[in-house]
């Protein structure tokens, strides 16, 4: 048993989970995009909201791209199995993000061909489709999918059945929607969480009393469905049977309370999870209940989101749990051991990963510099570059 290799596989699952968690937090941009018309009643107010979100959209986008690259590099079998199989889910997610990338830049430009409203609709498509679909796709890490993995396929030159990872559903991943309601439940939880974070971010970043009043009121309407969907998903997952990695890397099925046991077996992860949940609830509660405008809610809820999602992804892959189980052929399930890159590649990338600390440091520094002053309608009108 190569303990260094096992450590590296755990380390990269942690990094990928962290990137995924940061991505969910940064989806406050997407959540905010679905609230443009709810929080902004005049053209100026909507422009203010769009501009405050637009200054951060690239971070969310970049985190998604980096998440994809890091997943590819560290667990390429997931990339080839899920992306090549759940074709339609990933393609729809991509389309939702493609339209976002241009929407901000093109929206307020003269002669923009499609009109302002179309670009705002793109933002809505991204905010709604992006969050729900990403959440639904992540749900399959807990509920599984229908695929087989057979390395010997690549030698089937006479039969022409060369693909190693094969999807066993004709719906290209869309079956996740109807095969297990938990997937969509997580998708909706992510959607409402993104809206909550969007509200908290806008509260933190704009100086406009009308928007702030509406945002505060709206918070409760988003929190209730979020809690219903999130707690529903969580309880079902914790009480459900799961898969486990047995001796000789064989996959055991029907392991009772697998995810609950993972929390109990890894108290540190449980602590991260609980701290995260408290953070999210504190951020929401304090913002909603404060008599004065409380603007720091995004930091509690944001860090809380990162911790919660991180902990959930860790129980999906740690403690001998297959992180992507095959309901069709359990032995094809993906684990952090059978799907990872080689020890050499993980080592090389781990050295590069030291740079993440430096990257995070400059992002935090310049984020603070850019957000020091709250954005107003007047400032936007005086800017040379606006969305």
């Amino acid at each position: 048993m190569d303990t260094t290799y096992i450590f590296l596989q755990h380390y990269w699952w942690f990094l990928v989970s962290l990137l995924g968690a940061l991505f969910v937090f940064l989806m406050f941009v997407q959540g905010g995009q679905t609230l443009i018309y709810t929080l902004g009643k005049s053209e100026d107010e909507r422009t203010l909201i769009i501009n405050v979100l637009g200054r951060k959209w690239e971070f969310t986008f970049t985190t998604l791209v980096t998440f994809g690259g890091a997943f590819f590099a560290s667990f390429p079998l997931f990339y080839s199995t899920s992306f090549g199989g759940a074709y339609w889910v990933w393609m729809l997610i991509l389309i939702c993000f493609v339209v976002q990338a241009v929407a901000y830049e093109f929206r307020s430009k003269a002669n923009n061909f499609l009109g302002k409203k179309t670009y705002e609709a793109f933002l809505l498509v991204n905010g709604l489709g992006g969050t729900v679909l990403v959440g639904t796709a992540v749900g399959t890490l807990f509920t599984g999918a229908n695929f087989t993995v057979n390395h010997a396929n690549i030698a089937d030159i006479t039969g022409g059945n060369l693909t190693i990872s094969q999807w066993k559903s004709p719906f290209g991943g869309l079956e996740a929607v109807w095969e297990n309601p938990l997937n969509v439940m997580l998708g909706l939880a992510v959607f409402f969480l993104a809206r909550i974070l969007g509200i908290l971010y806008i509260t933190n970043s704009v100086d406009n009393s009308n928007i702030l009043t509406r945002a505060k009121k709206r918070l409760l309407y988003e929190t209730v469905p979020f809690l219903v969907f999130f707690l529903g998903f969580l309880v079902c997952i914790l009480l459900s049977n799961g898969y486990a990695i047995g001796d000789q890397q064989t996959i055991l099925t029907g392991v009772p309370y697998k995810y609950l046991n993972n929390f109990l077996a890894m108290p540190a992860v449980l602590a991260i999870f609980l701290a995260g949940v408290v953070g999210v609830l504190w951020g929401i509660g304090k913002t909603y209940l404060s008599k004065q405008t409380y603007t720091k809610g995004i930091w509690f809820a944001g860090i809380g989101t990162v911790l919660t999602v991180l902990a959930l992804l860790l129980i999906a892959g740690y403690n001998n749990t297959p992180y992507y189980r095959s309901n069709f052929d359990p032995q094809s399930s993906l684990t952090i051991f059978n799907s990872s890159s080689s020890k050499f590649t993980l080592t090389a990338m781990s050295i590069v990963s030291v740079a993440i600390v430096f990257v995070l440091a400059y992002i935090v520094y310049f984020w603070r510099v850019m957000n020091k002053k709250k954005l107003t309608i007047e400032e936007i009108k005086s800017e040379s570059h606006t969305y």
Partner: protein
Amino acid sequence: MLNHVFLSVLEWSRLQFALTAIFHWFFVPLTLGISFIIAIMETIYVRTGNEFWKKVVKFWMTIFGINFAIGVATGIILEFEFGTNWSNYSWFVGDIFGAPLAIEGILAFFMESTFIAIMFFGWNKIGRKTHLTASWLTAFGANISALWILVANGWMQNPVGMKFNPDNARNEMESFWDVLFNPSAIAKFLHTVTSAYVLSAIVVVAISAWFLLKGREKIFAKKSIIVASVFGLLSSAALIITGDTSANNIAQTQPMKLAAMEGLYKGKEGVGLSVFGILTPGKEANDGKDAFLFNIEVPKLLSFMGYRNSDAFVAGVEDLINGGFVPSYSDRDGNKITAELSAEEKIRRGKEAIASFAKYTEEKKAGNEVARDGARDELFKNINYFGYGYLNSPSSIVPNVPLCYYSFRIMVGLGFLFIIVFIVMLCGVLKKDREIGKWALRLAILSAPLVYIASQAGWIVAEMGRQPWAIQDLLPTVAATSRVDASAVMITFFLFFVLFSILLAAELKILFSQIKKGPNISNE
């Protein structure tokens, strides 16, 4: 039936990847170069304190921003398509190919996205020098992104630094430095970014020429032409050097691509470089027809460019199919080849390698250690031909010769035209006593669409010239695809085609409108 469906998936997957890559490359090269041009202009602004330059910078930044957004939009598709459409590829070489993509995200994309926001929105929030630093870092971030993805592409042209692992049917990295400093990767990066700088310089010159033709913003236009032409000339010089290095690399590692680029069917010693020719329509390898209806060439230049020896033997398409010659290139391990194998023999050895791999897997499963090790030894005897085992006919190793030949000439020919444009425009604006002729301004404006054609033609040579391989000699595209319904890929192909076409139309409309609006500096 199955075979038919599989081929259809292959064709649609290739079309979709080509479509998304072509669209992506419409927008990216301008951002790679114009970001440096902007940083240079802003440096002048910070050094002189002249507000004129700030307005110049802001105008070009708008052009940059419009392109950047759509470049990002088209880029994300490409990254995920490696998984969605090229599932086997992702696993077979993901251990090597994934790392540059991850490093690209960590080191470059965040740099780019952090500093681009400061560049656009930081004018009143940070000091001038910090802003200038952000502009330079945006440019470096964009170019470092290009470095990593081009290292990955260079590796596809010349796979080095890895070993096949039969236990999990994939190639595993053995040397990070071999992958990073792969000569093909370095050449690919330098040639591509310098071509992007030339493209950006031409676009800046063309837009400025339009203002001069309209008699608007003359000072702005002239100053922009000076900066862009000097930048473009220096980049063109670098482009010629990196182009020569690229050709030299191709000769060493992808002799079939070189033969296709040159329309060279029968190899010989002291081969000339075809300047321009008309290929014989319908020409096939070994059909006895002349390759050219008409050809003008520079004697011995191809031999010299390929092997630094004007009398070197350059293999043609037919030599590479038939084998039996002594090549001027070495094998992947750097050993001299005494007689090149025929394609047929390579295919036979490849099929043996694949059969040995299948046997290895079976014997391992059955627990027969001796038989397993025997199969493993057999596999590694023929491992260098593994990819050939997926091919069925010797002629399938030949890429589309006319496409490669003409694309190469379009790229190089236009590259030299742009040098003339830079010189004419630079001399024109530096002459104080008279205005630049209208013909020269029109030529400069016409160069803008031409530079995009040249740039795309370069990628056609690189990617179509590599066919039938996804990874040279290692994995043909036919074995690299996902098992998706052909109809699904067909639908997404058209979805992307329609979506990107609409976005391109929107981008061009906005771009032209912003250009017409101008920088509003002066009415002179």
